[in-house]
């Protein structure tokens, strides 16, 4: 009896398993169809539009090859976008990493009211980018807000924040001046306020995942807190840091609502971004093919970060 059961058991299970797997595939079909159309099909469609002559209200699907790409890359506005995007992304990620890590380390000190502080530093993430933009555009309005405090401290030349048109150092390159547009710093403050909690939460999860034995061992070896941090804790946070960088890069390359509500493209496009440019070019300028070009460039940039990350994450899992 026993032997027979042992024989039929796995056989029966294998059969059931395969019917389950067929159901599993069937379950996924509706979602896959939707995403194949709405993500991959539409991306292909946009890619095709970007090679046509459709640059007025009336669609014109005459193929012009990569001419739109050539035109867009030579515009003052798009070159400004690329400068702004690079400056913004690099500074945004650097500051978020530093602020997030510091906050996580402070919270990880077995403090009282830990969940209170953690929730407080994270709450801006629950608020929309547009509300954040509206509020910070008032706080950083050069005539009031933060500048009132700076004036109270005796500062004579208060910053113009997002109204500034200065670019530091402003080296001529292409059509534009290369450097850091000062106006972007205002956007940066608002977006760090909103997103640094994300870095904190992920770092905190990372810190909690470091085995206590590692820290104990460092202590026994006579390492002080500083050394323990640099040679034990920080190396353990490498994967966590990568995760944060990837997610924040994807978010930063897409930033739209905040800019739209806070500054718009700005004078001389000092706070313009590809997302903003695409939207206005397509829906206010009716330059559909050129709008498609900008969105395809955005997609390629994000894909360069995301695809290797997703593949390596899924591989690791297996």
């Amino acid at each position, binding site marked *: 009896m026993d032997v027979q059961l042992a024989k039929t058991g796995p056989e029966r*299970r294998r059969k059931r*398993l395969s*019917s*389950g*797997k067929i159901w*599993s*595939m069937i379950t996924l079909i*509706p*979602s*896959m169809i*939707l*995403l194949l159309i*709405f*993500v991959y099909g*539409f*991306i292909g*469609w*946009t890619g095709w539009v970007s090679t046509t002559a459709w640059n007025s209200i009336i669609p014109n699907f005459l193929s012009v090859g990569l001419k739109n790409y050539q035109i867009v890359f030579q515009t003052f506005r798009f070159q400004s976008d690329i400068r702004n995007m690079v400056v913004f992304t690099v500074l945004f990620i650097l500051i978020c990493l530093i602020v997030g890590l510091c906050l996580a380390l*402070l*919270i990880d000190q077995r*403090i009282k009211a830990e969940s209170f502080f953690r929730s*407080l*530093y*994270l*709450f801006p993430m*629950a*608020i*929309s980018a*547009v*509300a*954040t933009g*509206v*509020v910070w555009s*008032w*706080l950083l309005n050069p005539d*009031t807000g933060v500048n009132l*405090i700076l004036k109270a401290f005796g500062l004579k030349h208060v910053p113009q924040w997002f109204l500034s048109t200065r670019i530091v150092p402003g080296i001529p390159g292409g059509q534009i001046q290369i450097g850091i547009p000062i106006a972007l710093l205002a956007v940066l403050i608002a977006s760090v*306020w909103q997103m640094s909690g994300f870095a904190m*939460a*992920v770092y905190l999860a990372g810190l909690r995942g470091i085995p206590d034995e590692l820290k104990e061992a460092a202590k026994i070896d006579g390492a002080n807190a500083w050394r323990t941090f640099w040679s034990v804790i920080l190396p353990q946070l490498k*994967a966590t840091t990568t*995760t944060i960088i990837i997610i924040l890069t994807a978010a930063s390359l*897409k930033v739209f*609502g905040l800019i739209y*509500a806070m500054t718009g493209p700005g004078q001389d496009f000092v706070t313009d971004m*590809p997302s903003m440019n*695409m*939207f206005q070019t*397509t829906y206010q300028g009716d330059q*559909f093919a050129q709008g498609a070009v*900008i969105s*395809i460039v*955005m*997609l390629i940039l*994000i894909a360069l970060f*995301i*695809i290797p990350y*997703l593949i390596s*994450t*899924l591989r690791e899992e297996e």
Partner: protein
Amino acid sequence: MLAIRRINRGLLYVLLLLIACFYLIPVYVVLVTSFKTNTEVSLSQMWWLPHQWSLQALGAAWHALGPNFGNSFMLAIPATILASLFGSINGYALSKWKFKGANVVFFLILFGMFIPYQSVLIPLLKVLDLISLYNTIPGLILVHVVYGIPICTLIFRNFYASIPTDIIESAQIDGTGYWGIYRHIILPLSISGFVVAGIWEFTQVWNNFLFAVAVTNPPHQPVTVALVNIAGSQTVQFNEQMASALIASIPTLIVYIFLGKYFVRGLLAGSVKG
């Protein structure tokens, strides 16, 4: 030694509180400005408390935003429920019945969560127009359900990965099929998964601006678009602008305050490594 420790602890709390103050600056400004009267709101007295607390600005903001506030609920609730349901059955399929190529399917689904939505916008609006859903709330619901599927699938897949496979294997031996296992075993264990996915999706849909501004015109616009319109208008005073920002943020803030723990779980799941 103990004294130094105590001073250090004291400094730590002072630092934590100072940072907390920085994060709360916008909240303070929004609150004090929202309760000022039109005559009292001025550039030079921005930081002052109102002399006389007034509901004038909040009333005016509600008058302007109210209908859009309703639109956002009509949009966010169905979109959240549908995307979570899709996420749940997909997550079940991908975590408990891994067929050959399941990871490729998962990758194809996940990628949809990171794309800049500008890259699908031109065809999207064409197709919505074609099926008569352009400038309608159902159209916007469809958009949010489709683009919400990736994150919801990810959240549920991570969530179901923690349910032991033994339970499913023994149910199979008892003769329970694919959907039986889902209904009688997985679904009853999914409540906190639905809370996590639901909160995340609700917040995302409520706060979304790009789809909202691209797909809808008045009077179908969600609250985020209405807020931007109010803030962009030269004639609206700052107290009403801040009151509008406050009203537009209240639902997600309430959700965050009461269910913040689940919000954080959605946030961490969103970084792929669950």
